[in-house]
């Protein structure tokens, strides 16, 4: 047994607050609206503008799970250490699929800046089907639907959200989260789970559903219309409120999808969950990445 001395209990006690802090930090890079001009200054609901925001958000999501592994491993109880090992296996299996599910979207957007990704989706895509022109919102899901499904499933498995709560019964066998943690720790972990669910919904909305952009109505058109009718200040404020509401609605819909998945599926056992990650999501994400790269190369060759 590895003895960590006094560090072990400290890690166990600190892990809930680390877990919730990591997810809170991830929200700092989530852009809730676009950027609006008020005279000489601009305003956007984005706490921290980070060019590698997507990387930071997903890393914080992983870190939130990793601190729980660290706490389990350093707990000193062999049964809990085994739970930590299984938690680590879940994190790595789903983490690989999660990172690889991002690759196709990175190949398409060529940026890690979340606002930049939404800006690229804030337009209309014209398709010609048998002489008929169809206008579609240029959302990421239209370019790569499999990536959206793999990302959502991998992110839910990575965060240990229902139905991927494989470690919950083990915690119950080892005394249960409430029995092992003080009330504040247990509440922090519950809060971290809720925040992870919200973070995943926000990331899915930003990557695949155009974030705050209204379908068929780009921000530039909407803002110009409102500013011309209501004036610069009021028009921009109204545009900000409309787009914030649109983003909140999209996040709520993705959250609802997560809830439906959680209720429709029974708790996935440990081995089937690892099989899902290693044998289905990971190869699917790899094939999707390669096929996306091939299609982009073909498009670049044909459009040049």
């Amino acid at each position, binding site marked *: 047994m590895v003895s960590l001395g006094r560090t072990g209990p400290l890690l166990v006690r600190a892990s809930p607050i680390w877990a919730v802090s990591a997810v809170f930090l991830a929200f700092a890079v989530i852009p809730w609206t676009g950027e609006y001009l008020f005279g000489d200054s601009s305003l956007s609901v984005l706490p921290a503008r980070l060019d590698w925001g997507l990387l930071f958000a997903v890393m914080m999501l992983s870190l939130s799970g990793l601190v729980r592994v660290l706490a389990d491993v350093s707990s000193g109880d062999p049964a809990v250490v085994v739970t930590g090992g299984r938690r680590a296996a879940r994190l790595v299996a789903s983490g690989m699929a999660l*990172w690889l599910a991002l690759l196709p979207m990175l190949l398409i957007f060529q940026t890690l800046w979340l606002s930049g990704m939404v800006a690229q989706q804030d337009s209309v895509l014209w398709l010609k089907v048998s002489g008929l022109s169809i206008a579609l919102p240029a959302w990421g899901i239209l370019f790569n639907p499999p990536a959206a499904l793999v990302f959502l499933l991998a992110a839910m498995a990575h965060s240990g959200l229902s139905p991927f709560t494989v470690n919950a019964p083990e915690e119950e066998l080892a005394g249960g989260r409430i029995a092992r943690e003080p009330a504040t720790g247990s509440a922090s972990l519950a809060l971290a789970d809720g925040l992870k669910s919200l973070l995943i919904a926000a990331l899915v909305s930003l990557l695949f559903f155009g974030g705050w952009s209204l379908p068929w109505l780009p921000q530039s058109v909407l803002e110009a219309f409102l500013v011309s009718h209501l004036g610069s200040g009021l028009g921009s404020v109204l545009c900000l409120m409309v787009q914030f509401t649109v983003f909140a609605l999209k996040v709520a819909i993705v959250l609802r999808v997560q809830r439906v998945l959680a209720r429709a599926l029974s708790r996935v056992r440990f081995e089937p969950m690892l099989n899902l990650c290693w044998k289905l999501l990971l190869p699917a994400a790899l094939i999707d990445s390669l096929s996306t790269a091939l299609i*982009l190369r073909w498009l670049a060759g044909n459009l040049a």
Partner: protein
Amino acid sequence: MVDHLGVLILLLAVIAVTTLWLGVLVARPRTDVPAGGAGGGESKEPQAESVARAPVSLAFLGTLLLFVIWQALALLLVFWALAFAHVGFAVVASLLLPVLVGVGYALRRGVL
């Protein structure tokens, strides 16, 4: 391609070392499980208890750490994808294809 040769060499070196280390750890015969396996009606439950409560070795934790390192290596693929417009399909495929072939081989051998 030449600009990214250093990253490729570093990546290959890290993967080679971690794979060798993991191979040594996995190939080492297990001494903590009794030779009888899971058979034997009466001794079944105490045996399962003893395996579950067996002390965790440093090698086990090291193996866990290796998988975390592998996950970190997946991060490198992110930067290759971001450089797609500059480096082209061949360079991105040179990293993705071996991984895909490796995953396919592992699936075929039933080790995943």
